């Protein structure tokens, strides 16, 4: 599997292949059809399947509502929300409609929708286009939150998400779109509720997702020189979480550092930290540490935005502090 694709192209390929594979799949959203998406992710679909790609009005609640209703009728909509920050304007449709359909129908109906959304900061578009919205959806039983980090994961997890019978919010990080990596040509699935151990190590477990994995890997290399073995885990699906993989790792290393974009308070680092402290306290050799963004809205100016987000140095500092505890 020598072929390399960008994260953006990998997602696009997954969409094409699923459209091909299953006639009940269709796409909808603002500018997704003719133009192929604001970020270019849905390119080429409308040209091949003009009836199965819909440009909508700026009506996010209608987009999700329509998706839910059609899913109950057996279709498999893949909606694009453009910036993930816009979940706020259709939050009800996700929280009180999509997430509860299966429960509401007592299992008789399900809600196989995928909502793609571009998350995270880093491209200087200020507080309304830079938020890490993951935590806002992780207290909602019924939803699945997926956050792939590589082109390989992006393709495989999107295919799994589309085939899955529950509502999935599929997050794409804007700074990863140009990231390249090996991607098989044929369609393939990646199991949704399974964390990936990206790197083995005996001393510290770092849990990180998406763009934060870069910081984790860089820190791990640096620490390797100091003789510290870092194990890196990417949950990939943030909710429901593969607790076991994290627990087994921390039970071995005794130290947990969560690296997370977005405010610290009530970020998903809180859940992972609390879960580990609750379930395997006796294995912990040091306090859990959260390396996160500051608890502020993301400002526009590069100087400000960069200050808000965690850096490799913060990860290093956290790791050293748990090692020397």
């Amino acid at each position, binding site marked *: 599997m020598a072929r390399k694709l960008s994260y953006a192209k990998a997602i696009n390929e997954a969409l094409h292949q699923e459209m091909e594979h299953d006639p009940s799949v269709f796409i909808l959203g603002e500018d997704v059809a003719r133009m192929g998406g604001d970020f270019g992710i849905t390119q080429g679909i409308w040209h091949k399947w003009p009836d199965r790609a819909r440009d909508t009005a700026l009506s996010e609640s209608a987009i999700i509502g329509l998706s839910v209703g059609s899913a109950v009728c057996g279709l498999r909509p893949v909606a694009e929300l453009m910036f993930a920050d816009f979940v706020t304007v259709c939050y009800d449709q996700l929280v009180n*409609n999509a997430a509860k359909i299966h429960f509401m129908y*007592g299992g008789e109906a399900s809600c196989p929708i995928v909502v793609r959304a571009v998350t995270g900061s880093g491209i200087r578009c200020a507080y309304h286009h830079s938020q890490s919205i993951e935590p806002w959806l992780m207290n909602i039983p019924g939803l699945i939150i997926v956050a792939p980090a590589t082109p390989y994961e992006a393709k495989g997890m999107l295919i799994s998400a589309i085939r899955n019978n529950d509502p999935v919010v599929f997050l794409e990080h804007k700074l990863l779109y140009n990231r390249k990596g090996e991607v098989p040509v044929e369609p393939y699935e990646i199991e949704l509720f399974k964390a990936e151990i990206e790197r083995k190590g005996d001393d510290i477990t770092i849990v990180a997702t998406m763009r934060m994995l870069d910081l984790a890997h860089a820190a791990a290399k640096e620490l390797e020189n100091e003789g510290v073995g870092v194990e890196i885990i990417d949950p990939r699906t943030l909710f429901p979480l593969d607790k076991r993989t994290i627990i087994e790792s921390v039970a071995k290393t005794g130290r947990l550092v969560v690296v997370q974009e977005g405010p610290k308070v009530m970020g998903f680092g809180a859940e992972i930290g609390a879960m580990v402290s609750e379930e395997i306290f006796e294995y912990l050799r040091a306090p859990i540490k959260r390396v996160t963004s500051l608890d502020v809205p993301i400002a526009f100016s590069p100087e400000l935005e960069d200050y808000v987000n965690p850096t490799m140095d913060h990860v290093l500092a956290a790791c050293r502090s748990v090692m020397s505890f």
Partner: protein
Amino acid sequence: MALTKKRLLELYCDMVSIRKFEEAVENYSKNGTIPGFIHLSIGQEAAQAGVVGALKKTDYKFPDHRGHGAICLCGTEKKRVMAEIFGKVDGINGGRGGSMHINDLSCRNMGFNGIQGSTVVTALGTAFASTYKKTDAVTAVFMGDGTLGEGTCHESMNMAATWKLPIIYCLLNNQYAISTHYTESHPQKQLATWADGYEVPNEVVDGNDIEAVVEAVERAAERARKGEGPTLLEFMTYRWQGHFSGDPAAYRPDGELEAWQQKCPINRSRKQLMEIHGCSGAELDELDARADAEIAEAVQFALDSPWPDPKNALKHVYATVQVEDWK
């Protein structure tokens, strides 16, 4: 094109059965047997029976929070609807939803969602599915005068009108949203004209006249099936009870209820059946008695049904993941 005697008799029975159903629910709510709060539709039977009655079994129906009647008429067994309202295990959703959330895909009762205005956008999806799959199914979504305040109504109407989706917006204008009269929260003299802004056909219909209801829905359904897009129908009606069972409804001016009771949709059809179609009082009384018996049976079924196993609370959260029970 007045309704035939047979059809009117059927609709009369439907209305009576809604009335009896609601009266039973009211009793068991007031005496504390039914948990939670209950929205009753006494006085609004014609709008419910007429809408469902004018549609096909294969059409999608979204009843609203005041929709026990429409729900039952979709075809879900009455006793299982009753058991749901009682919170019992034989309820159609196993007691998960209760009065406000009664879903039954098998008869295309798409249920309600406790968040007003939510089904108004979900309805886009069932309608879209009809066009996608090229079936002739129409979607009817019930909504109240108050619900028209929600932003989702605009997003839905805008999209349905642009894409000519087969939707019938069934706006039951029963004058009030809880305590607020519709003229206090909306600028239009008739809410139906709101649809003018979308170039969507709309009608104001006497919601207590079952014939008028049926005919308006048939017209709208025909348009929808022909691919001509949505219609908004405003059914003028009145709820005799307060917003929820127990609400004293002190906000209503004196005499208003009584005036509307004069316009009782059931009495009206009864009168027509007797005066125009030659039915006898005894004949109709017997139909009423049959409805009584049917509801009594439904109530008994609900009373006899056991409570759900508490562990059922963990079922059906996901189709693909089992939730942990740490209890």
